[in-house]
Structures are given as C-alpha cells and as structure tokens.
C-alpha cells in the first residue's frame, strides 16, 4: 500500500475544499462548483489505474 499516494490524495482533497470555500466567499459560486468538480476529476484520474487493478484482482479471485 502506497501511503505516500494516500497522503497526496488527502492533500488534494483539502486544497480543493479550501479553494471552493474561497471562491464561494468571494461570490463566485459557479467557479467554486467548477473547482470542486475539477478536483474530483483529477483525483479520479490519479486512482483510475488502481481501480482498474482492483477490479482485475476481484475478477481473478472470483474467476469471473
């Protein structure tokens, strides 16, 4: 398990939350929404390989 990876994703999550808060307080709610979605997309892209490996592993374990 790559702990470094987990910390990165946690860090990104925190930063995206702060950005979103900053933007909504400045009155730019649409930008805040965009920032949240972008953060989600970035994290998903980072973990997509791991998810794909995870599903492969499930498949081999259960021989689907």
């Amino acid at each position, binding site marked *: 398990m790559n702990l470094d990876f987990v910390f*990165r994703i946690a*860090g*990104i999550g925190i*930063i995206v939350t*702060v*950005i979103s808060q900053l*933007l909504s307080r*400045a009155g730019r709610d649409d930008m805040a929404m965009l920032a949240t979605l972008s953060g989600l997309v*970035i994290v998903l892209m980072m973990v997509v390989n791991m998810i794909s490996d995870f599903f492969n592993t499930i498949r081999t374990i259960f021989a689907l």
Partner: protein
Amino acid sequence: MGTRVALSVCVVLGCALCGRALADAARRRAAALKGIAEGLRVLKIHMTGMLEPVQCALLSAKCPLFAVVADGMGEGRSAAEAWQAARAPAMRRGGPAEALTESDARVLDALFDRLGQSGRAEQGALLAGTLRDVEALWDEAAKRSAETGRLYTSLGFLIGMMIALIVV
C-alpha cells in the same frame, strides 16, 4: 528529497505570482484613477487660481491623459473636441486610459464637455464635482483591486500546492 522540496516551493511561488499578475488589471485601474484625481487637483489650482488657459493648465497638471488632450487642443480645438478625438485611442491597449472602464470614461466626458466654457466659480464647481466622482471611483477600484489581488494570489498559491502534490 531536497530538490523535490525546492521544486515544490518554486512551483507554488510561481503560481502565486501568476495569480497576482492576473489581478493586475484592477490594480492598474486604481492607479490610473489616482493619477487622474491628482491631476484634477493641480488643474483646479492652475485654472481657477492662476487663471491659466485650458491648454497650459492641462499640461501643468502632469497627468498623461490630460497631456494627450492638451496636445489635441493644439490645432485650435476646444477641450471637448480634443477629448472626443483622443478618447478611443487612449482607451485602447497601450494608451494612458487603457485600464479605465466605460463608466470612468463617462465621468471624463462630462468634465471635458464643459471645461473652460464658463466663469471661474462654475469651473471651480465643475472640477470639484469631477474630483469627488473620481475619488469615489478610485476608492471602489482600490478596494476591488485589494480583494481581487488577495483572492487570485491565494488561488495561485493553492493551485501551486496542488500541482506540487500531483507532480513532484
């Protein structure tokens, strides 16, 4: 490890500075309005105090925008005509009024339309009124510029940290 830290710091700072640069337009508008307010103060002294003709007074005010209008008056035009001719080029990229908005320019329209065309008391009132308007605009622009500056700098900083986390 050390290089990674150094690289992260560079990325973060770089993004913060980018953010500040984006907020530059608001800062330049506030600076331009401040320059115009100072020019108006000197113009009032030269016009109503020393009774200098409009063209001389505009040159003495040491404001780049007023200097453009003064040059335009050189061909025997009134202040209003000179401003109408110089307005569009001045508000384009690179001109002295580049950072001003349309509502800022309307205040200047009202000023130049009546500059030099009435007696001393009326001119004094015109200049004082315009100075009040410009100072109000400047206050608003300065506040907005400070806010935008803070916002964009923080955003830049945070995005920099994110990039550093992802990449480094």
